[in-house]
């Protein structure tokens, strides 16, 4: 269905090609997963499929790309619109119309389909993706998961044979992500659609893939193969694969179910080893950093938080989990006084955060918002660092030094908007940390982060906790929570439904349990590294 023949792509003004010598054959009806670091050329590969690269971006394409026999050189994106459906990373930024139904019809209008065909396909798609209740809703009022499904639906109505998606689940909670992936799988199975998708969160998608393409970046040639071939020696792999490699399982399991069936011997091996308890290291300071008591926050007639009573102390890393819209962001915002409370109290550093003004707030609590760009106003990284030193009234150069530790590759003169998503996050983190706030709050820090950046973030968070910071992460990333959290709080419809040590909370929940826990249940192992340590002890 898709053929890349000796393809090299060079952007205008660049000396080196982003992709070089790509040869790739993707048969019809496959679900292909494209994996690679940020900046490796993964998005270029995806956008070359419908000719956006180079028709839209400019540049030089050497070689030939055929999609269903059509050459992208002679067919610009608009002429391929009936064949390739492209879902951008942020669905909201690709919407043209203002309501769900109009958006679903937009592509067909451009293709000039007859009115009755359009009507029929809109109805089919509404049903296929479970959007029927939302048909008249304005797109702005939808949740992230609903928007993603509308974005998929809006390209499906053109009946494309190929569907290309850029990180379709990165903004979604585990439940919504599964809905979207199930919908994609249905397309592959029932309608023989070829799906090509890029995704960082392998643990969510590997089991659905028929083929994996690894884009290593730095001009190295891409490799592709079946998931079990590719996962055998891929530098990045989901926990289920890492555990399989560690235990030497053959064939390598890709799903939790297969791994469970192979895990009998490993479970026996681990008997007698208790998973390490997550204890708070560093300063044992019982004084709470933030307290909420019967906290209630309302937006109009909707209660975003109901009677939330929690306490965060030094040295803790708390993962705040729950569906999109469960109130996680609201809770974080309330702790820094961004949102007024409706009832109950919140005390950060012993004070009502809404009363703390200016620099004092920065020194007592830091929040990295969901879009770290919200914090950035200057036109260069260096300027941003200087103004941060000034805001926090700290020694000039403090922020720059922190940034050098967190992200050494970031240059001074770059515009913050030209940084990758991960680098922007680290810059915002450096700014927030400049004032050394004892309490650090992060809202969805791993959205769109690749594995190396995520690993770096995990290391930083551990070090901060060890030096007595209290950290709260609102996150959908169950593997991240399992990796770093000492405690997990689950919110549902604004209420705390679970609060306790990580093991106790995540093991009890099918939605928030990490893969290792699912494989080794009922034992309470959470991560591959824990198991590895235990196995080393066993052997040694």
């Amino acid at each position, binding site marked *: 269905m898709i053929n890349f*023949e*000796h*393809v090299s792509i060079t952007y*205008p003004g660049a000396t080196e090609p982003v992709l070089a010598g790509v040869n790739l054959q993707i048969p019809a009806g496959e679900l292909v997963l494209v994996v690679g670091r940020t900046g490796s050329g993964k998005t270029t590969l995806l956008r070359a499929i419908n000719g956006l690269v*180079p*028709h*839209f*971006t*400019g*540049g*030089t*394409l*050497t*070689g*030939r790309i055929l999609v269903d026999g059509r050459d992208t*050189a002679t067919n610009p994106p608009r002429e391929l619109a009936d064949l390739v459906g492209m879902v951008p990373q942020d669905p909201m930024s690709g919407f043209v119309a203002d309501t769900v139904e109009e958006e679903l019809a937009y592509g067909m209008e451009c293709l000039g389909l007859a009115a009755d065909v359009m009507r029929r396909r809109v109805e089919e798609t509404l049903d296929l993706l479970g959007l029927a209740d939302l048909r008249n809703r304005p797109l702005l009022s939808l949740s992230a998961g609903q928007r993603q499904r509308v974005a998929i639906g809006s390209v499906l109505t053109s009946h494309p044979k190929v569907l290309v998606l850029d990180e379709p689940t990165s903004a979604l909670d585990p439940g919504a992500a599964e809905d979207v992936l199930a919908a994609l799988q249905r397309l592959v199975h029932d309608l023989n659609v070829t799906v090509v998708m890029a995704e960082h969160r392998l643990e969510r998608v590997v089991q659905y893939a028929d083929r994996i393409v690894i884009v290593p970046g730095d001009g190295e040639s891409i490799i592709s193969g079946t998931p079990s071939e590719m996962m055998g020696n891929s530098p990045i792999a989901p926990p289920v694969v890492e555990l399989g490699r560690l235990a030497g399982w053959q064939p390598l399991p890709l799903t939790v179910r297969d791994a469970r069936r192979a895990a009998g011997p490993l479970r026996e091996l681990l008997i007698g080893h208790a998973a390490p308890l997550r204890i708070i290291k560093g300063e044992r300071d019982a004084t709470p950093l933030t307290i909420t008591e019967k906290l209630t926050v309302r937006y109009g007639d909707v209660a975003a938080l109901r009677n939330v009573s929690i306490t965060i102390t030094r040295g803790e890393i708390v993962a705040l989990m729950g569906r999109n819209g469960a109130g996680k962001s609201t809770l974080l915002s309330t702790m820094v006084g961004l949102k007024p409370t409706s009832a109950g109290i919140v005390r950060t550093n012993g004070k009502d955060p809404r009363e703390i003004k200016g620099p004092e707030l920065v020194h007592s609590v830091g929040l990295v918002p969901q879009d770290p760009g919200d914090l950035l106003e200057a*036109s260069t990284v260096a300027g941003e660092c200087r103004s941060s030193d000034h805001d926090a009234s700290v020694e000039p150069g403090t922020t720059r030094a922190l940034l050098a530790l967190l992200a050494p590759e970031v240059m001074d003169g770059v*515009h913050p*908007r030209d940084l990758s998503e991960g680098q922007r996050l680290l810059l915002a983190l450096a700014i927030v940390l400049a004032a050394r706030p004892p309490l650090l709050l992060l809202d969805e820090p791993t959205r769109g982060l690749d594995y190396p950046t995520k690993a770096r973030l995990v290391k930083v968070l551990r070090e901060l906790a060890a030096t007595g910071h209290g950290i709260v992460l609102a996150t959908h990333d169950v593997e991240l929570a399992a990796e770093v959290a000492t405690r997990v709080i689950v919110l549902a419809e604004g209420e705390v439904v679970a609060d306790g040590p990580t093991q106790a909370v995540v093991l009890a929940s099918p939605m928030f349990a990490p893969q290792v826990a699912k494989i080794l249940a009922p034992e309470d192992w959470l991560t591959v590294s824990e198991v590895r340590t235990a196995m080393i002890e066993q052997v040694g």
Partner: protein
Amino acid sequence: MTNSLALRLGPRSITTIAATSLVGIVAFGWPLIAAPTSSVVAHATDAPWLFAIVIPLLLAVVVSSFTDGGMDAKAIALLGVLAAVVAVLRPLGGGTAGLEPIWVVLVLGGRALGPGFGFVLGAVALFSSALLTGGVGPWLPFQMLGAAWVGLGAGLLPRATGRPELVLLAAYGAAASFAYGLLLNLWFWPFVANLPAALAFTPGAPIVENLLSWVRFTLLTSLGYDIPRAVLTVTLILIAGAPILNALRRVSRRAVFDPQPTFVPAP
């Protein structure tokens, strides 16, 4: 730094803009330039309505002359986004002494993205903000044409960089926003019946006399709006002009208007 033009001005669009502008000059200026015995003067109270119908039709022709071969998705999307910015800014100054920050966007947009884009931006921006606020009325075509001229002119300014460029733009912004106020006075002036003779449009009177009346009318009525508007525009351009221009030029580089994709068969 090369400035790519978001909308290419071809012979077709230049002709339509020129013709529309000619008709537009008459639509605004007929009270001052029409011969006392001409037929438009004979129907003085109906003339504004006639032009309120003709101008939008001609603007439609201009817009469509661009789309026939030039207006790609990038220009459309950027146009929509900048028009949204104008729509957000417009109510901010609504009514308060003519303090309309929108001129900054129109002037800088025209400057950074070219005269053709500036022209269409002026028309689209005023139209969409009127739709959003429910402000569609007989004044709208005149506002659209006036704003389109402001954007067009900004795109035609001579080359300059750095500080001189900002000063140039600020001077233009002052002149343009002031002129806009004067022009819009003209279109409804013939309506305002029963003014004293020294202020009123007198059909059939010598042109010089009408011109003086109009100047007096402007001095007495709208100067309080036009001067603060010009001052605000100058201040904003001098303060925020540089970063806004940079942002517009950044996006115009990033968008790669007029990309020239090349395809080389594999060796």
